[in-house]
C-alpha cells in the first residue's frame, strides 16, 4: 500500500491520539492498597532516615518470617511528599494498608474516619504494653486508632568549649537536677555576655513542623492548651502567660538568633552545627548525624523545668487505614513491630526512644553515643499522658497554624503577651469548631 501524504497524516494523528491514552492507562497509578491484590500482602508507606528504614526492613523481615505467606511492601517516600501523597490516596480511595504518622498529625486522620478503629482488633490489655503518655497519643474519642511506634523528645545539646568559655561547667546530669527556668536564663545571660554579637546562647527547635515544641514550655509551667474534654481552649492561664513571656524573652534578650522564629525556613540545628549557637534544643534523632559531622566536643543535658519537667511527645505512630483489605494482618504487623525486641532494635539503631513501658523503664542504649541515652530516656519520662493526649486532637493541624501565627507575632512582631494569649485562645477555639 503506497504511503500518501494524507494517509501518513491520518496515521500519525491516530497514533498521537492513542499515545496519551495509553500512557494514562499504565504506570501512573499511585501505590495503594489496590496495587497489592493479594490479601496476604500489606502495603506500608513511610518516610525515614537510613537508620529508620533499615530498622523497618529488619522488622518486616522478622514479621514475614513469623507469618508464613505474609508479605509487606515497604514504600519509602521523602517526608516532604509523604502526606500530600497519603491525602491524595485517601481522597481517591486507594490508600496503603499501613502508614507512619507523627502524633500531631494523627488526630487529623483518626478524627475524620480515615483510620481503622483498632479496639476490636487488638487483644484486651494491649495498651498496657505502652507508657500512659504513648497510649494516650493514639486515642481518638476514647478508642485506639494506631500504635505508638516510637517517641522522641527535646533535650539540650551543647558545645562544650563555648560553655566552658562562658564559665558554665556545672551542667545537669540527672533529670531532677535540670535547670529551672531562672537558672537556664542565668546560663543564657552568661553565654550572651561571653559570646560575640554574631553568636547566640541557644537555639530552639520550633521551626518547620516543630511549633508544637513550644508547648514544652507550657507543660513545664504546668499549663494546658486544651481543656480536659479536649473541646475548648485552656491556654488563657497563668501558665500560658508565663510560657509566652519566657519565650518572648529569648528574642528580646538576644538569646536566640533573630531568624530562628517559628516560621523560619532554616532549622536552628544548622546554626548549632556551625557553632553560631552554644546550645540547641534537639531530639535524639540528631545524634548520629551530629556524631558523624561535628568536629567539636559536645554533650547533652535535660530541658529546663519550672513547676515540673515537660517535653514534647514527639515521634510517630503506625496506623491502619479504614479501607485496609486485611485488617487482621495489618493489626498483626502493628503488634509485631511494637514487641520488645523489634522496638529495641529499631530505637537503638535510629537513636529514638521506645514507647513500651518495659523498655522505657529499663532504658535502651543507642548504638551511637550510648552514654547520651539516659538523658533522652530520662527526658521522655517527664512527658505526661495529659500532655500527649492534647496533641492527638483531630483539630491539631488548625491549632498548629494558630500557634505559628500568634507566636511569630509575639517573637518577632512585638505583639504583647496579653494579645498573644487572646489570639491563641480565640484561634484554638475556632480551629476546634472546624
Amino acid at each position: 500500500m503506497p504511503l500518501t501524504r494524507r494517509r501518513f497524516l491520518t496515521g500519525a494523528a491516530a497514533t498521537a491520539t492513542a499515545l496519551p491514552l495509553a500512557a494514562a492507562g499504565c504506570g501512573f497509578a499511585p501505590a495503594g492498597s489496590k496495587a497489592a491484590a493479594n490479601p496476604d500482602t500489606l502495603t506500608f508507606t513511610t518516610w525515614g532516615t537510613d537508620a529508620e528504614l533499615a530498622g523497618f526492613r529488619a522488622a518486616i523481615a522478622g514479621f514475614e518470617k513469623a507469618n508464613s505467606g505474609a508479605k509487606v511492601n515497604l514504600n519509602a517516600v521523602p517526608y516532604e511528599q509523604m502526606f500530600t501523597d497519603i491525602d491524595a490516596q485517601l481522597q481517591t480511595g486507594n490508600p496503603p494498608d499501613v502508614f507512619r504518622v507523627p502524633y500531631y498529625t494523627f488526630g487529623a486522620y483518626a478524627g475524620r474516619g480515615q483510620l481503622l478503629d483498632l479496639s476490636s482488633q487488638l487483644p484486651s490489655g494491649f495498651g498496657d504494653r505502652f507508657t500512659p503518655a504513648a497510649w494516650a497519643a493514639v486515642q481518638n474519642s476514647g478508642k485506639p486508632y494506631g500504635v505508638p511506634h516510637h517517641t522522641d523528645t527535646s533535650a539540650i545539646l551543647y558545645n562544650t568549649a563555648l560553655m566552658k568559655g562562658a564559665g558554665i561547667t556545672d551542667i545537669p546530669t540527672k533529670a531532677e537536677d535540670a535547670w529551672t527556668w531562672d537558672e537556664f536564663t542565668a546560663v543564657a545571660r552568661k553565654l550572651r555576655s561571653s559570646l560575640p554579637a554574631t553568636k547566640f546562647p541557644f537555639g530552639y527547635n520550633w521551626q518547620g513542623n516543630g511549633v508544637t515544641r513550644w508547648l514544652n514550655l507550657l507543660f513545664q509551667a504546668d499549663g494546658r492548651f486544651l481543656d480536659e474534654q479536649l473541646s475548648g481552649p485552656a491556654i488563657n492561664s497563668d501558665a500560658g502567660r508565663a510560657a509566652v513571656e519566657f519565650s518572648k524573652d529569648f528574642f528580646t534578650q538576644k538569646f536566640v538568633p533573630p531568624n530562628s522564629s517559628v516560621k523560619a525556613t532554616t532549622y536552628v540545628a544548622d546554626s548549632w552545627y556551625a557553632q553560631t549557637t552554644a546550645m540547641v534544643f534537639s531530639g535524639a534523632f540528631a545524634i548520629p548525624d551530629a556524631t558523624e559531622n561535628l568536629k567539636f566536643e559536645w554533650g547533652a543535658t535535660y530541658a529546663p523545668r519550672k513547676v515540673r519537667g515537660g517535653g514534647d511527645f514527639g515521634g510517630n505512630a503506625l496506623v491502619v487505614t479504614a479501607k485496609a483489605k486485611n485488617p487482621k494482618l495489618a493489626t498483626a504487623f502493628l503488634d509485631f513491630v511494637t514487641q520488645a525486641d523489634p522496638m529495641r532494635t529499631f530505637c537503638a539503631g535510629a537513636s529514638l526512644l521506645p514507647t513500651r513501658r518495659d523498655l522505657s523503664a529499663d532504658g535502651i542504649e543507642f548504638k551511637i553515643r550510648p552514654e547520651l541515652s539516659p538523658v533522652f530516656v530520662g527526658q521522655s519520662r517527664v512527658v505526661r499522658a495529659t500532655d500527649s493526649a492534647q496533641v492527638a486532637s483531630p483539630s491539631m493541624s488548625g491549632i498548629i497554624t494558630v500557634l505559628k501565627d500568634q507566636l511569630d507575632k509575639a517573637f518577632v512582631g512585638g505583639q504583647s503577651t496579653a494579645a498573644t494569649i487572646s489570639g491563641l485562645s480565640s484561634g484554638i477555639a475556632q480551629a476546634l469548631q472546624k
Partner: protein
Amino acid sequence: MSRPTASRQRRAEAATAYAFLAPNVLVLALFVLLPLGWAVGLSFQRTDGFGAGRWIGFGNYLRLVGDPLFWRSTLNTVAFTVIVTPLSMALGLGAALLLNAALPARPVFRSVLIMPMAVSGVATALIGLLVFDQNNGILNGLLGAVGLPRIDWQSGGAAAFASVVLITLWWRVGFNMLIYLAGLQGLDPGLQEAALLDGAGWWQRLWYLTVPLLGPASFFLLIINVIYSFSVFDIVFVLTGGGPQNATSVLVTYAYDTAFVSRDQGYGAALGVVLLIISLVFTAVQWRTSRNRDQTG
C-alpha cells in the same frame, strides 16, 4: 476537481487537524480544565478534603474580604509583580543587546546567563538559602569580611523581600535575554544603518527603533512574566516560607498553607480561583490594549 470531492477533502483535512489537536486538548482537559472545575466546586464548600464537603455558597469568598492575610498576600504579590516584571525585562534586554554585539567569548556569556533556567525553582531557592542565610550565609560572610554591617535577610521584612526579588531575577533574566536575543537577531540591520546615516545616536536608535521593533517579544515577555510573578511559589516557599511576619507571603503560598497545612481546602481553593481571575483579567486587558502584540494569526 469536482465540488463534492473538494468538500470531502476539506472534511478529511479538518478531521486530521482535529486528530492532531486531540492529544493536547485531551491532556489539557484532563490535567488543567478538570482540576480547575473541581477547584471552583471546592471553593464553594467547607471541606478538609476527606468525605463530602459542606456547601456554603459564597462563604469562602466573603471570608476573603475580611481576611487581612489575604490582602497582605495580594499586596505582596502585586508588589513582587511590579518590581520583578520590568526589572527582569530591562535586565534581559540589556544582556541581549550586549550579547548581540561583537564580544569576545560571547557564547560563554550567553550560556552563563541562560544556565539558571536549567535549574529548578526549588534548587534555585536552596542556593538562595546558602547565599542569604542570615547567620552562616555567603553574602553576610562577605559583607562582614569587608567591614560592612550584616543584613537581616531572614528576620527583616524588607530585606527578605529583596532576597526573593534578587534570587528571582538571577533565575529569570536569562529567559528574558533569550527571547530578546531571538528578537534582535530577526531585526533588519538595514534599518539601524539608515538611522545611523540619518544621525541618530545609540540611545535614539534603541528607544525609537529597537524597542518598538521588539514589541511582540516585549508583549510575550510581559504576559509570561506577569503570569509567572502572580503564580510564584517555589522560590518563596523554600527561601522565606512567606515570612518574616508574612512580609513575603504571596497568594499561592497562602493558598498552599491554607489548603494543605491548615487543611481548609475550600478556602484554599477560593484563594486559587481569585488568583486565576486576577491573572485572566490582567492578560485580557493587556491583550486588548497592547498595540505591540504580534497581529498575525
